[in-house]
């Protein structure tokens, strides 16, 4: 008994001693968008080889999570796949934080269907009528499509949880800020959406283009019925011809300085932007990449 107590005590002392010791390394807190998280993680991983003294701690949770952390001042860089609203800006300023926006890239929001689904093209209006509260499209046959393996003919709508930037952008760009129809499957990650669509012949979903797999197809999207139908790609997101492409943003409190500034400059330089391109997102800056 006595010996085990003293062992326990020495473990405590060692643990506390370890805790008191402070590292000289600078840590950049980076939090937010699930769309941007794979890129943010790849940047952090690559940056540890660039500057071993600076560590970038990445966490997700969604654009809303990043923005509230910015409002509360608990992050250095907040990732977001939507712009901060003026109310969020005010809340941050009330706490003494002054969010500054940095455009780091673009993401084409792809519409996903099962690979057996023959629907090759969709208009924004059709999407709004599938997903929107007042939409009347419930069945694939209403789009003149017969989906093999989907006997019920019913469109299974796959969507995102409501603090997701992808959710907010889709609502703004496709539904014109109308509410979503109830009864969609709200997934907690872009990968989940694609995964569910891949397994469900009746399904339709939306997520960043970078999450595409061979088991799903991405129909081209028309702005209005007469427009040319544009497939999501890095080029069409960059030249603006793809109708649902959104900015990927990083927010800092005030103008970046010190290690945060060096990191952001690296992110917007060739090295960072090429990582973005490699992962299937569209760079914000023209970058020279070795293919």
């Amino acid at each position, binding site marked *: *008994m006595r010996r085990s107590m003293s062992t326990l005590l020495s*473990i*405590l002392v060692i*643990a*506390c001693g*370890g*805790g*008191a*010791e*402070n*590292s000289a*390394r600078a*840590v950049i*807190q980076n939090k937010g968008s*699930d769309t941007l*998280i*794979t890129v*943010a*993680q*790849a940047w*952090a*991983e690559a*940056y*540890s080889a660039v500057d071993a003294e600076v*560590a*970038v*701690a*990445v*966490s*997700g*949770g969604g654009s809303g*999570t990043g923005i509230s952390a910015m409002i*509360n001042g*608990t992050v250095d860089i907040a990732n977001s796949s939507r712009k901060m609203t003026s109310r969020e800006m005010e809340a941050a300023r009330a706490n003494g934080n002054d969010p500054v926006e940095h455009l780091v890239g673009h993401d084409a929001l792809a519409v996903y269907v099962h690979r057996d689904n023959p629907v090759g093209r969709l208009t924004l209006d059709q999407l709004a009528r599938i997903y929107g509260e007042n939409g009347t499209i419930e069945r694939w046959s209403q789009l003149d499509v017969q989906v093999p393996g989907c006997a019920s003919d019913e469109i299974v709508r796959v969507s995102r949880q409501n603090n997701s930037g992808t959710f907010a952008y889709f609502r703004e760009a496709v539904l014109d800020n109308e509410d979503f129809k109830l009864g969609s499957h709200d997934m*907690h*990650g*872009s*990968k*989940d959406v*694609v995964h569910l669509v891949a397994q469900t012949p009746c399904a339709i979903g939306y997520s960043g283009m*970078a*999450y595409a*797999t061979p088991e799903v197809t991405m129909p081209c999207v028309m702005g209005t019925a007469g427009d040319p139908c544009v497939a999501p790609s890095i080029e069409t997101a960059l030249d603006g011809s793809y109708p649902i492409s959104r900015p990927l943003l990083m927010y800092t409190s005030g103008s970046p300085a010190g290690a945060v500034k060096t990191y952001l400059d690296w992110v917007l330089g060739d090295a960072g932007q090429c990582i973005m391109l490699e*992962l299937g997102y569209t760079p914000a800056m023209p970058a020279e990449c070795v293919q």
Partner: protein
Amino acid sequence: MTGTAAPLFAGTSLNARDRKIEWLVRALLGLMTALLILPVVIIMALLVVEGGPVISWEFLTTPPVDGMTAGGILPALVGTVWLVVVALIASVPVGVAAAVYLSEYAPDNWLTRAINLAIINLAGVPSIVHALFGVGAFVLFFRFGTSILAASLTLAVMTLPVVIVSTRESLQAVPRAFREACWNMGATRWQTIRRIVLPNALSGILTGIILEVSRTSGETAPIMFTGAAFFLPFLPQGVLDQTMAMSLHLFVITTQVPDAPEALPFGVALVLISMVLAMNALSIAFRVYVRGRKKW
């Protein structure tokens, strides 16, 4: 029963029915027990079959690479150990002390009953609510930031009721005659507790701590906002650092990392479960040793 002598007890139709019911009930209860074990066996078998191939020494000792689709899980493994150890340091002394007071000193009045009720309710609070409390109290109010300290304290608050309840129960399992004998010899309450009650209750107290370790290492919600990161390029150096953790790592590679190999999440789950089982086995071995020295 089936001896050569005439049966002492002739079966009637009435107790034949009783015997049939007896057999049925026994079979039913046995079946329920088997059902209880079945999920555990299936889960373990599935994890070993699906995740076994990715486990290697490198898997345990290297950080993840290539956008977390390859490499190992070292930072998450180390992070979980940090979180559990700091949570134990925070909750075990408080929990055991509170249980000793409630069991040995507290008078049976409305205040004590209210405290007991509070403990039971604390145990029933969903973990996500603890997470929000942790963000508000430790991350923002005490300004610990998102750190191991904030996450571990959140976990400690969450598991405190487990420690208190199990400790109090094992203290109360020590026969009252032991205490009375002690008091009659002129020992004070504290002398009695230290020399007689605590040593005899040690195995039960350990059970509570085992339960806490298991629950702490698997929880995801309380740590994801308070201290666990999606990715960190370094191992935590102190309690004010953020950390990766096994449970959150499992969640993110399943839901958010594109192109992660199918076997990877199973491998992470297998390591997590093995870690908990190993800690449990160690504590159980210690309990058996302590119980072997028990004098009653």
